[in-house]
């Protein structure tokens, strides 16, 4: 920084206040505009909690640190703002690990603060010491251990900057106990100086033109849109671009909501349990434009068969994703929104695609998602459709991981962005309930529906306590198939029906469990019961749990079997 002789308003008025590290943390969080902290106290963060005691930032006490971190993820997903977490050293910090890894794979902005033993005893296996820096190095975008209180304001500013810019991700800041206790001058941080971190936001115009040239000559183009579009808040640009260039659109699991499901150009979700039309388009395309997706293996199926005859263009803010899994002909590094803007500026013109669009439209009409309905048994797919109907398609849908997640993706079509909260990359069971809590806190006025499996629900069900405590009107719907359904499905299909430890018949009574947590609980075993109970639950002003007993042996179809190509889907038709 150069010497500025003109006294700016800032240098004149700001007297650096003296305070301890914990107050600095709270002060810095306020300046970052943090609205809510998800945390759990303990020895190494006592001073930090003491600073929080004076208020200023609401704190949500989850019942397990895993609850804190998934709640922060849910919050970040629906608001686009960073989720902030505080946990103590050792076990507090290690309990966060799953959620940090989840946020890393799903590119969610989190800033996680962990307490640490005092600097003098680091390395001595002190009480509640764990090397959270070492543990989280591969699952964070970056992490810091603060060695001196004077570094704290700078590190916090950098942590928020790194978490929220470029490709978002989790950043962890480990604060030894003596540092949070130490007195220092709080220095306001305006600029960050990170020469090693300069994400490319504006794409190269030449590359953008190449994409448009490819579109003009393509006969079978397809646009694959991932969560990058949502991070960039670029859904309107995406739609305009798809319409002007006449591109059929496939969403990834995490990209759902980035393109209106009812749009004639929409083909649905691609991948392992994606729609026939989406996978047909990805497989047969002569031009594949990926915007903001990372070619996850659940999307591509066997790479050997993926997009074999296609020219591949890949637009991504993270250059390391381009060419990582799929060889790319037209790499475009940049923010999805900026790329779409430039694509539109450069006047997209469609190729000769009428035939292709007609063919895909036909595939979509003839091969929709299907199931055998019943009047006696409650089919899980029917259940999701009912939820869709009764919420007018306008809820924020949060899921756990397993079959119910796939059914929710298939049977709850989304018209709007930021209403779909799910664990994609890591596939973390136990994510759903805490993530729904975080989503509701981020969007207090929205209707939040948590669609959970009975297995995953039991991994973090202690967080039910928060619904009553903070009066969060989340509608918790358990798709109860008395099994680890997705595991059971794979055992049925690929292990000759040897159901090793995937059937859990003796669940707790979930209605009583809800009541124990002082929220109403309902149960439904048939479609008519479900219809009645769901209406009642959705009319309830506060939180409610609905235990839905669905047909136990139901499978998710269609399916690309593991190791197969997208053209080798099974269960496409009844």
């Amino acid at each position, binding site marked *: 920084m150069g010497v500025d002789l003109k006294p700016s308003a800032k240098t004149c008025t700001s007297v650096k206040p003296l305070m301890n590290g914990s107050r600095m943390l709270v002060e810095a969080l306020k300046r970052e505009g943090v609205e809510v902290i998800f945390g759990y106290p303990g020895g190494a963060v006592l001073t930090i909690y003491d600073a929080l005691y004076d208020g200023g930032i609401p704190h949500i006490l989850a019942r397990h640190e895993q609850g804190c971190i998934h709640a922060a993820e849910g919050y970040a997903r629906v608001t686009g703002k960073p989720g902030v977490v505080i946990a103590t050293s050792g076990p507090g910090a290690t309990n966060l690990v799953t959620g940090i890894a989840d946020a890393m794979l799903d590119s969610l902005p989190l800033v996680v603060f962990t307490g640490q033993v005092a600097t003098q005893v680091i390395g001595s296996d002190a009480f509640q010491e764990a090397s959270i820096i070492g543990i989280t*190095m591969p699952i964070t975008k970056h992490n810091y251990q603060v060695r001196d209180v004077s570094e704290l304001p700078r590190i916090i500013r950098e942590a928020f900057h*790194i978490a929220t810019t470029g490709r978002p991700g989790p950043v962890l800041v480990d604060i030894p106990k003596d540092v949070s206790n130490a007195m220092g001058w709080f220095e306001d941080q305006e600029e960050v100086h990170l020469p090693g971190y300069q994400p490319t936001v504006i794409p190269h115009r030449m590359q953008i033109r190449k994409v448009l040239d490819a579109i003009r000559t393509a006969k079978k183009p397809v646009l694959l849109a991932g969560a990058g579009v949502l991070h960039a808040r670029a859904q309107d640009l995406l739609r305009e671009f798809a319409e002007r260039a006449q591109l059929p659109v496939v969403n990834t699991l995490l990209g759902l909501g980035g393109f209106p499901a009812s749009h004639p150009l929409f083909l649905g979700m691609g991948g392992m349990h994606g729609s026939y039309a989406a996978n047909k388009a990805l497989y047969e395309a002569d031009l594949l434009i990926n915007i903001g997706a990372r070619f996850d293996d659940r999307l591509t199926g066997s790479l050997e068969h993926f997009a074999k005859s296609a020219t591949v263009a890949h637009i991504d803010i993270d*250059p390391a994703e381009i060419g990582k899994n799929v060889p790319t002909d037209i790499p475009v590094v940049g923010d999805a929104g900026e790329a779409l803007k430039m694509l539109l500026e450069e006047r997209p013109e469609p190729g000769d695609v009428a035939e292709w669009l007609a063919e895909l439209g036909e595939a979509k009409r003839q091969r929709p998602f299907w199931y055998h309905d019943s009047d006696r048994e409650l089919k899980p797919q029917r259940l999701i459709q009912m939820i869709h109907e009764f919420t007018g398609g306008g809820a924020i849908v949060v899921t756990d991981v397993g079959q119910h997640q796939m059914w929710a993706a298939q049977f709850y079509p989304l018209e709007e962005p930021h209403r779909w909260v799910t664990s994609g990359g890591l596939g973390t069971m136990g994510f759903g309930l805490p993530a729904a809590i975080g989503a509701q806190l981020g969007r207090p006025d929205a209707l939040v529906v948590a669609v959970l499996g009975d297995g995953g629900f039991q991994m973090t069900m202690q967080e039910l306590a928060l619904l009553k405590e903070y009066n969060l009107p989340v509608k918790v719907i358990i798709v109860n198939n008395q099994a680890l359904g997705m595991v059971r499905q794979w055992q049925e299909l690929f292990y000759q029906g040897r159901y090793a430890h995937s059937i859990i018949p003796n669940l707790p009574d979930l209605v009583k469990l809800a009541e124990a947590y002082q929220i109403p609980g309902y149960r439904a075993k048939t479609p008519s019961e479900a219809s009645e109970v769901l209406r009642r639950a959705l009319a309830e002003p506060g939180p409610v749990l609905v235990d839905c007993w669905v047909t136990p042996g139901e499978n998710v179809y269609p399916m690309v079997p593991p190791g197969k190509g997208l053209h080798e889907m099974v269960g496409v038709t009844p």
Partner: protein
Amino acid sequence: MNRILSVVVNNRSGVLNRITGLFLRRGFNIQSLTVGTSETEGQSRMTIVLDVDDERTAEQVIKQLHKQIDVLKVSDITDQPIVARELVLIRVNSPLQTRSELTALIEPFRASIIDVSRDTVTIQAVGSPEKVDALIFLLHPYGIKELARTGLTAFVRGTDVAAEAPRPYRNRVLSI
């Protein structure tokens, strides 16, 4: 195939761990890695010799390195005119009868004897990895008791020199 990367990093605690951890996590193989201070205070220079199957992996390694916040610069210098050196210490059996023979043997390598005991001598040599390989090969028959190689450290030659270097030399590691 081998690629030589020259990487400038912030000299912060844990940075070596970040780099090696990245290689472990992504399953990239390191042939050698050297690190030490650079010309700029607060920055270290690493020379990483990678063993990769193809160009795409090499590219992926470079991109992943770039993603590290503490990595300031990554250059693949394999195909550039570079100076590349490695140091080796070799303790080799050397009863008095063979000692003069040994001294003559290592002479062309500009290696030197830096320690002597009753039955062994310790030889130090500096040079390209090929030169070091050759020296080790020649010393093998005498019985190598202990060996330590530093791994390669390298950077791009000064531009004026590079411009003067005859073309065939530009595309490989110079071994003078």
